[in-house]
């Protein structure tokens, strides 16, 4: 009897030890988004920090860090610092997917933030869907693709900017208003380009028109590449205006080759092009060939021009950027010359303020669920843009778009009188 009791006791002890061993790590892993109170709040950012679209990724980061630095220097968010973990995907879908997964699983970030580009972001949509139980959310992707705003797997995406469709619509309407009937499209042959193309198509279709001609280029094209074929194709279509859905290097190459070919057609770009980066390479080219490449350029923007100091958010951005001037993110090469002010940085700044609002609402112990809950509830937000930004998913087409033209070496808001193309 004694032996039986002893044996039972031993078995029980062994079992309880086993259960403990099995349970302890499970308890630890089952609460991955509960961070210690004093640890920084981690935001994951997989973006293009190298390659032809690095300007977008880097400046967006700097803009965001301008605000977060301000927050961190002022006591942090509920006493916790905010950090952005960066990962470079070079504007390629594959690395973007892997980076995102690593940020989610290994680095255990609270939320994803500022993914750059349509093909890359499109690729991580299924991943977000996969992690929907853990409420993994992506805030403020730098992409206007419609696919991030409608359809499947988009419930955890919280974009701030207007869609390409809205930008295209604004551009098309501008051109149509100025009497142009034949609009051609140069686009990157991927989902970004297609998205812009679709926007133009729909805008034209709304007026009973079609795209008169189209040409494509492959992602990754650089300024040194020739775009003469594309220029030829579009010129043949007798286009009166060209809308580029491109990265700045390719767009710059196209503008250069078009102007070099003596084709003085108005050329428009969507916001993703990175207006300052485009301007920079065109200025360099202009110095070489003594030609004005910036005349007749029209860029749509999802933020106001940083020259518009009358807007409080812009003024704040300029002030804080002057104060902090954040350094480059880790993956970026040292040879990149940061821009002083830029549209993308301003977008990053505004995005950071959006995150700020969400986190502030989420309280001192934010979890992924809480972040999503707060974000979903947040239908309007005043970012200092003279009027609240509508964040409601259903009213996504109410987001603002600004048209800008080059003046004195920078993009400035298009004045009503300048709406007519010379």
């Amino acid at each position, binding site marked *: 009897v004694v032996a039986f009791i002893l044996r039972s006791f031993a078995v029980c002890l062994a079992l309880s030890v086993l259960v403990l061993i099995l349970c302890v790590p499970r308890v630890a892993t089952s609460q991955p988004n509960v961070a210690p109170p004093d640890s920084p709040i981690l935001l994951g950012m997989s973006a293009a920090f190298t390659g032809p679209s690095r300007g977008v990724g880097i400046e967006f980061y700097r803009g965001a860090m301008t605000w977060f630095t301000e927050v961190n220097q002022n006591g942090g968010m509920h006493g916790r610092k905010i950090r952005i973990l960066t990962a470079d995907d070079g504007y390629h879908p594959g690395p973007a997917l892997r980076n995102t997964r690593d940020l989610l699983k290994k680095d255990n970030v609270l939320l994803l933030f500022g993914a750059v580009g349509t093909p890359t972001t*499109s690729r991580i949509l299924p991943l977000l869907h996969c992690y929907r139980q853990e409420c993994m959310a992506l805030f403020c992707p730098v992409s206007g693709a419609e*696919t991030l705003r409608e*359809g499947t797997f988009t419930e955890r995406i919280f974009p701030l900017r207007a869609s390409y469709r809205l930008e295209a619509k604004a551009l098309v309407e501008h051109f149509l208003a100025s009497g142009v009937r034949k609009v051609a499209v140069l686009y990157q*042959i991927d989902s970004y380009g*297609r998205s812009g193309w*679709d926007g133009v198509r729909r805008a034209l279709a709304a007026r009973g028109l079609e795209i008169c001609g189209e040409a*494509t280029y492959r992602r990754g094209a650089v300024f040194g590449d020739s775009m003469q074929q*594309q220029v030829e194709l579009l010129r043949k279509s007798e286009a009166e205006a060209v809308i580029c859905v491109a990265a700045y290097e390719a767009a710059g190459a196209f503008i250069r080759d078009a102007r070099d070919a003596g084709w003085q057609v108005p050329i428009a770009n969507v916001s993703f092009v990175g207006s300052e980066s485009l301007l920079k390479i065109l200025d360099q080219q202009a110095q070489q060939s003594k030609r004005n490449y910036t005349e007749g350029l029209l860029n749509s923007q999802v933020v106001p021009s940083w020259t518009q100091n009358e807007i409080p958010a812009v003024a704040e951005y300029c002030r804080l950027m002057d104060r902090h001037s954040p350094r480059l993110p880790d993956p970026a090469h040292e040879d990149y010359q940061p821009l002083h002010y830029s549209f993308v940085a301003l977008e990053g700044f505004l995005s950071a303020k959006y995150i700020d609002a969400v986190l502030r609402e989420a309280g001192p112990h934010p979890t992924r669920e809480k972040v999503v809950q707060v974000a979903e509830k947040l239908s309007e937000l005043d970012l200092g843009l003279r009027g609240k930004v509508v964040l409601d998913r259903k009213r996504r087409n109410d987001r603002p778009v600004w048209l800008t033209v080059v003046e004195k070496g920078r993009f400035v808001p298009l004045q009503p009188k300048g709406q007519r193309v010379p």
Partner: protein
Amino acid sequence: MNPKRRLFTRVLIALVVLFGGAALISAVLAASSLVGVLEQQYRSKGRIIAETIAQTSEEQLLLDRDAAAIQALVDQYCEIEGIGYILIQDSRGVVVGHSFAPAVPEELLAAAATGVDIHEIRIGDALFMNIDCPILEGELGVVHVGMDRSAIDRAFRRALWSQSLTLGAIGLAALIGAWYLVARLTRSLGELARQARRVAGLESLFDSPLPVVKDIQPITKRDDEVGQLAVAVSHMIESLAAREQQLHAAEEARQQNEEYFRSLTENVTDVILLLNPEGVVRYVSPSLLKLLGYLPEDWHYRDISLLVHADDRETFRNAVSDCLPSEPDSLEVRMIRDDGEIRIVDMSLINLLLDRAVGGIVVTIRDITESKRTIELAQAREAAEEASRFKSELLARMSHELFTPMNQILGLTKLTMEEPLNADQRDNLIMVCGAGEDLIDLFRNLLDFSNLKAGRATLDKQVVNLVELLSEVQKLLRPKATTRGLRLTLVIGEDVPQWFVTDPDRLRRVLLLLGGNAIKFTQQGEVNLIVRVEHRNLFFEVRDTGIGIAPEKQSEIFEPFVQADGSQSRSHDGAGVGLSLAQATAQLLGGRIQVTSQVGVGSVFWFALPLEPLTTDEGD
């Protein structure tokens, strides 16, 4: 070219050709079958992709979603290996997604517009396998997927390359292995061949029979056919070497033998001839030159009977032709030298016609001319000696026969003188007596001389009282000296021993003869008999002051019957046999009489006898 190399190269070339051919054929076959499989696979792959895109696009197209969604599909699938292009058209034919830059090619749009199922299409330089897939049975549009043929070509080339490289590597390994094996094999074979050549080339095996086998020994350790071959070859070489050695020994013996006989044949003074039955010379030994002065080679295949004296030629020819195998024949013939001299030779003939080794008649010719002459000389000498002996015998016998009547004459004369006679009668009888005694002396001397010359004289040695003997001699000589008015003296040296071993009668006789001779040839003065010891010799000297002997005559005086004056008219009586007898007797005693003389002054005759030591009991 080295045979070893040739075999080696052939094997290697065969290997390379075989392996290279096999590798190439196998690579091409494998690659072309791969192409078929790849084409099939690519087509299936394209179909799957097209169907997937078509299915996924349905929702996007139905809900009029952003074309970016469809483009995202295109982007995604375009990354797959082998996809050349993707083109998606909606129901109105509007391209809503594609993968071309800078634009969708006209030819593809044109082909797509026909609505016919496109199997293959060439765009620019590239060839694509086109797979069409309608979206919702074509109600919503169509998906065109182009599989890049160059991808297949690339795969084909890659497969061909990797196959070739793999086979090449294996081939190289095999080649190296084969190289090693063949090199080993050919090395062994080459070594065997080399040793076989050595053996075949009659290289001396006895000098180094072991090294040859030793060289092969490592090869024999192999247990394959080459090893067995090597064992066989080494055994062969060993037995060959043994046989060669035997052969060599036999050959050496044979050569020695031949040399021996040749040497014998060619160095004997006899001439050896080998004749055929007709008498023609087949061989003649070099001694022909010595014997007859002809060169042997001049008489090859000639009739040797031409050298035989004409009188004996017939005999010789008959002997040659009649010579029987079982009976050696011998004959004596005369042959003629090249200088015409006749030589007498002894020929012995042996018929060896039935002897396979010789097959002829062997004639041995021996020159017997000299020996024949020697025999003749010996016979002559013998005859002379016989005559001399007869003379001595005669002399002795005659002397002896003379003694008896002379003694009677002397005896009767002396008896008669006892009778009373007148002075004339007495004087006559004294003269008869003197002449008779001289005659007896002469006869005695002659007898002695002939006895000595005939070798019949013997010595009767005994211990003699030398002084007594000398005194006796002086006493015997004195009457003659006194008669001739001469002074006779005897001088004996101080160291002359009293006792002396000799034949006293003979010594006395020599001294008497010399003394008598000195007295005979001395008119006046003196005769001295001197004895002394000099150089362990006993010197006997007889000096006179007589007429002397001329130097040219001094050697003749000891000849029998010669007198020194040499004239026919002898001034001195005597037969002239005295000195000869004295000399012969002195020689018998062991001395030799010599003479020194000056004409008109005198002569010294002297001889020496060895002073033999006496035995102790006879000493003093």
